[in-house]
């Protein structure tokens, strides 16, 4: 399913998120199960299915990483079940360094500061990748899309780091 079409948006990595949210609410008003509370079981069933689709579309387009993946999927490049890995040594070294920093948080004198610092560096790095990605995704050339796929793989590494950091932050609270 083409989610850009569902939301009446031009397929692009740079989208107007406020407009996306507005369209999302309009679609929800049309399909949400609460609007079918007095309808037949059939209508209720379809309403749940369509709303789930609208919700999935919204979360796919809202998050830059899944939005980029969706654009590639529409171009016929499916990254979901692939086994290709990143070969950029410099990037992998950086990843290892960050992994080590994550492990050090537990022994740190000021874990909160370290967590905040890591969030900030992840953010800067991801933003850099995102900027390059936006340009590549505008192109239709095979080599540009392959390069985009490589950047998306890197963003996935970043997302995993982010999740790991959140988990460590959660452990700090408890």
């Amino acid at each position, binding site marked *: 399913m083409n989610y850009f079409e*569902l*939301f*009446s*948006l*031009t397929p692009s990595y740079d989208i*107007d998120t406020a*407009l996306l949210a*507005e*369209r999302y*609410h*309009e*679609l*929800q*008003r*049309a*399909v*949400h*199960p*609460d609007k079918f*509370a*007095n*309808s*037949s*079981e*059939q*209508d209720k069933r*379809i*309403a*749940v*299915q*369509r*709303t*789930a*689709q*609208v*919700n*999935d579309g*919204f*979360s796919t387009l809202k998050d830059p990483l899944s939005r980029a993946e969706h654009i590639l999927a529409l171009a016929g490049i499916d990254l979901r079940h692939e086994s290709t890995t990143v070969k950029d040594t410099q990037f992998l070294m950086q990843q290892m360094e960050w992994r080590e920093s994550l492990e050090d948080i537990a022994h740190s004198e000021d874990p909160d500061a370290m967590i905040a610092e890591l969030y900030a560096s992840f953010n800067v790095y991801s933003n850099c990748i995102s900027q390059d990605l936006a340009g590549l995704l505008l192109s239709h050339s095979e080599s540009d899309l392959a390069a985009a796929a490589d950047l998306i793989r890197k963003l996935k590494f970043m997302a995993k780091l982010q999740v790991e950091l*959140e988990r460590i*932050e*959660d452990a700090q*609270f*408890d």
Partner: protein
Amino acid sequence: MALLQIAEPGQSTVPHQHRLAVGIDLGTTNSLVATVRSGVANTLADDQSRHSLPSIVRYTDDGIQVGAEAESYSAQDPQNTIISVKRFMGRSLSDIQSGSQDLPYRFEASENGLPLFVTKQGQVNPVQISAEILKPLILRAEKTLGGDLEGVVITVPAYFDDAQRQGTKDAAGLLGVKVLRLLNEPTAAAIAYGLDSGQEGVIAIYDLGGGTFDISILRLNKGVFEVLATGGDSALGGDDFDHLLHHYLLNEWQLATPSATISRQLLIEARRIKEQLTQDTEVTASLTLEDGSQLQHKVTRALFESLIGKLVKKTISSCRRSLRDAGIKIDEVLEIAMVGGSTRVPMVRQHVADFFARAPLTSIDPDSVVAIGAAIQADILVGNKPESDLLLLDVLPLSLGIETMGGLVEKVVSRNTTIPVAKAQEFTTFKDGQTAMAFHVVQGERELVDDCRSLARFTLKGIPPMAAGAAHIRVTFQVDADGLLSVTAMEKSTQVKSSIQVKPSFGLTDMEISAMLKDSMANAKQDITRRMLAEQQVEAARVLETLTAALSKDADLISADEGVVIEKSMAELAQVAALDDTDAIEKAIKTLDACTQDFASKRMDNSIRLALTGKSVDSI
């Protein structure tokens, strides 16, 4: 001269009839029922002008007492007087017994390991006890409103898991009441508060009740109540404050093995002290032992706060996590509304104020706001306000996952995903000729299965025998607007729909539910067969009404041939619906359902298109 009635296109000419619906706050300590009359939502009182019903049920030789009456025997007959039953909902007996609280009840385990309370009226489970609490509230509403209810909205803690939600819905099902929606308590409070204040923007609802804690972060925008994130603890509430004080006083007085009666008396006293300490800084606890001797002990607010400090801190951690999940910074939160009786504790207010760096809103009635919100939604869902632009977008509180090799969890749907949601996952066979596959569904955030809550186990059968890895089984997990999970599966290459038997880990089996239903019907005015017939007749009328309207509006979506088939099935359904054969009506609905499936989907797609009609692709 007769006046002509002119209706808006698409609207019925029949004068609008007010349908009776209520919202019920089924609380750990107290329960309430509310409804909308003449556009205003209010809680309903019993014949002695009491609004809140203590959630206490007592089983005696002669029958069942509920509310204040049961409460008055709480200390005298603790074994048969069940308090805070909500804490047992969807929990196993071993969960309960591994808890820190001393419980006076006699327990047995059901087939699934659910707790059964052994009472003077025999064995009862938490679902049945909850139904006893709902019963007088529904009777009260029917008496006050003068008619049968068409449906109810029941509130649940946002952090309730699937088993706890299902249990709550089952309790209403035992009474034959139609549940329009299970509504999350903080969301209900947000509706009541948001509509009343006209507030727009991000708000936080901090809801600390008798037995549960929820924090929800919502964005309010033009009638849309969008939950951005929710968090909490379904086993943390004012009850725990009572138990900590209870434990402390037992220690101080060196009462190592108090009788059940003394223990319950002390628990009631602990609650009184907690409440008193919201006003005073020092209260004297007293207890009369069986031999008539009097015990006394001074409890200061500082001491009480040192006991509960750890729990209050835990709620603040949840607030921090939920804000992060919502992607909201503290200074973006416009208002923090305090809900639930336990937010009267000064230490709770202070910590919330410190964390959010502003004074929380305490002007709304923390006890009734949830029931009021539920009543507003019930009124809309039942169809009394077709022009309402209220839209609630809620989320799944805990991630759903399945067990993989080595006892690890693979997440299928993550927490704070907006519901309804459907996610498909593909699996393949491990051995040649394998025809079945076992699944274990869990809910929680941890990586190991043992650290999450087991929701259900099911076996997929009837997979066509193929070489290992050749079968592609697509399993779809769907969570509806009530937050309830259902699972379907299909083998992709052969399109064979596999049968799934979901066995809830901590829920009632279908057998148990039907046995309970029969029991509850034995005393009811209607018998079960009549009720099922009535339900099918109502559904038949609804199907015909919906279709007739749809055909007159969207006839262009179907071919003439399809139209003929549909008309014929409709006529058949109309015919059997007038008779009293439940099975025949059900069958006719199914037949009609099958031949209108396509039409219904097209209509829904049409309304999706209409929603964005006139909006150019790029901007409005």
